[in-house]
């Protein structure tokens, strides 16, 4: 991966009728990277992507692509391709016509068009479907036509807005791998919007976590998981998410902080040897392990993992223990304190 940023956003803001859209978005995206914009629904992921694509114009800030200021350029001048959540296929055109539509518009010679079409369909496994209309394809195939259309454009930057959200879970898994492989093989830069943290964490080199139009943290999946910037990130990333404890219920942390701890760092210990005594509120069998939810005053989302199938009856009391080095400490405003 080279480090020259292909995309730079500088303090970009977009508001809808003065209301919140996105605010203070600053990002450097290196060439050849896979960046995921992650966040709950309505946090401004699509808006950020559409600002980049030129489908919306920012109210403030600057957007640079390849070092060129494109803040107010038309979408077609930005040298990028885009995969839409709805795929945006032209319903009256065949698969082949859909894929080469852009090439035709740019008057690419017919022979070259045919070659590129063949290659794109080969990569996406759509050979033999050239003459079908989108309406005659399954959801997964339509999705691949949308991908093929982005590939055939041959741009170095590809934007994807929740491209997998209309697929069923199993298909999503395999297409996820395909997209990741495609990005590596073609060496393109992908900016990928998703609300699904599994997608973001498994595919991306860099995850940008957003909330209410603001970036919360930019980092590798490991950064977000192991070193969350604030309590929102801590609670958003990971399944189960990090448990948050009021510092007043532990010794030595003062009274106004928030302590975070992950389930895998908690051990069940014999009665009397633990740091906290909790009540079991639910047991959930996950396959390889069992997730046991715990209640304790001043905690939220506390739980512990036990290997294999080992359900614990609701209402039972359990003693737990953990090491201080596994704790994440956040100040009163929810910002991370420890390194």
């Amino acid at each position, binding site marked *: 991966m080279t480090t020259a940023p292909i995309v730079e956003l500088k303090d970009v803001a977009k508001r809808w009728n003065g209301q919140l859209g996105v605010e203070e978005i600053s990002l450097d995206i290196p060439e050849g990277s896979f960046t995921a914009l992650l966040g709950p629904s309505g946090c401004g992921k699509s808006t950020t992507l559409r600002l980049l*694509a*030129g*489908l919306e114009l920012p109210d403030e800030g600057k957007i640079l692509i390849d070092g060129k200021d494109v803040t107010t350029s*038309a*979408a*077609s*001048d930005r040298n*990028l*391709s*885009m995969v*839409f959540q*709805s795929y*945006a296929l*032209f*319903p*009256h055109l065949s698969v082949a016509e859909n894929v080469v*539509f*852009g090439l035709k*518009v*740019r008057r690419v010679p017919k022979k070259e068009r045919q070659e590129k079409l063949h290659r794109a369909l080969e990569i996406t496994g759509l050979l033999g479907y050239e003459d079908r*209309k989108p*309406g005659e394809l399954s959801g997964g195939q339509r999705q691949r036509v949308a991908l093929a*259309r982005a590939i055939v*454009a041959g741009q170095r930057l590809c934007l994807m807005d929740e491209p997998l959200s209309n697929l069923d879970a199993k298909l999503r898994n395999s297409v996820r791998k395909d997209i990741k492989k495609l990005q590596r093989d073609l060496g393109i830069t992908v900016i990928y919007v998703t609300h699904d943290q599994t997608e973001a964490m498994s595919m991306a080199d860099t995850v940008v976590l957003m909330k209410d139009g603001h970036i919360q943290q930019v980092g590798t999946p490991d950064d977000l998981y192991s070193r969350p910037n604030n309590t929102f990130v801590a609670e958003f990333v990971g399944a189960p998410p990090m448990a948050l404890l009021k510092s007043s219920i532990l010794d030595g942390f003062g009274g106004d902080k928030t302590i975070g701890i992950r389930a895998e760092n908690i051990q069940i210990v014999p009665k009397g040897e633990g740091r906290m005594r909790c009540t079991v509120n639910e047991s959930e069998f996950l396959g390889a392990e069992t997730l046991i939810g715990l209640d304790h005053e001043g905690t939220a989302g506390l739980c512990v993992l036990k290997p294999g199938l080992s359900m614990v009856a609701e209402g039972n009391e359990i003693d737990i223990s953990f090491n201080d080095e596994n704790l994440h400490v956040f100040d009163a405003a929810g910002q991370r304190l420890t390194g």
Partner: protein
Amino acid sequence: MSAHANLERRRQAIYGWLLLSPAAVLLTVFAFYPSIATLWSSLFSRNTRRNPTEFVGTENYADLFADPTFWLVVKNNLFYAGITIPVSIFIALSMALWANSKISARGFVRTAYFTPTVLPMIAAANLWLFFYTPGLGVLDQIGSVFGLPSVNWLGQPETALWAIIIVTIWKEAGFFMIFYLAALQTIPEDLKEAADIEGTSRWTYTRRIVLPLLMPTTLFIAVNAMINSVKLIDHLFILTKGGPSDASKLILYYIWEMAFAFFDAPHAAAITVLVIAVLGIVAAVQFLYLDRRTHYQ
């Protein structure tokens, strides 16, 4: 098992016929029977005091084909259809594309275009009388500003049919625009965005994406415009009464004249049969031919 399947199939069949029967009854009473009756009466001679009705076969048709007025009316109507159909469709489409784009006062534009449709044809014709009247009419008033002589738009054979055509287009275009507008709203926004990213010009997008997706609507409108080109004659009564010297006479008006001014029901019936036959054939061709080339969503 197979007995059950049989029973189920019969039940489905009965259910189907029950659903069809109201429409079938109404169509029979008000469409099929009158058509047959018309065809029947077109084969008989006119009932006068001296000559009672008698079977004459195709004599009424032969009379028509020998009648120069009939051919003039047919020619008028073909010309009328040939101008009003494409022009009103073209104007409707242009207005819809414009009214659908992000212009200010979009609501006002839509309403303004739609107003002619709401007016009854008779009222519209009266309105246009105010434009066409020689000397006093708006057109002449404007003309006189530029020193042009007064023109009797409705009163001379060269312009009468054109005057009628313009009123029809004015009346129909707004109506067809509403259908186009509705169809345009069903085209997802992101198709335009996907095309934009590829650098598609507005014109290419319209030609390659929008027009093909509007094809079902165009087909529907074309059939309606064709039917209207025969059906819509209210304004003739107000504006020209088919004159001068039959220059603006259309087929339906001729039929009306035949039946209720000259009381010649058999000849009127014969023309009616011809009109039904031609309309039926044209509509069938339109649907069969264009249907195959149309993408339905």
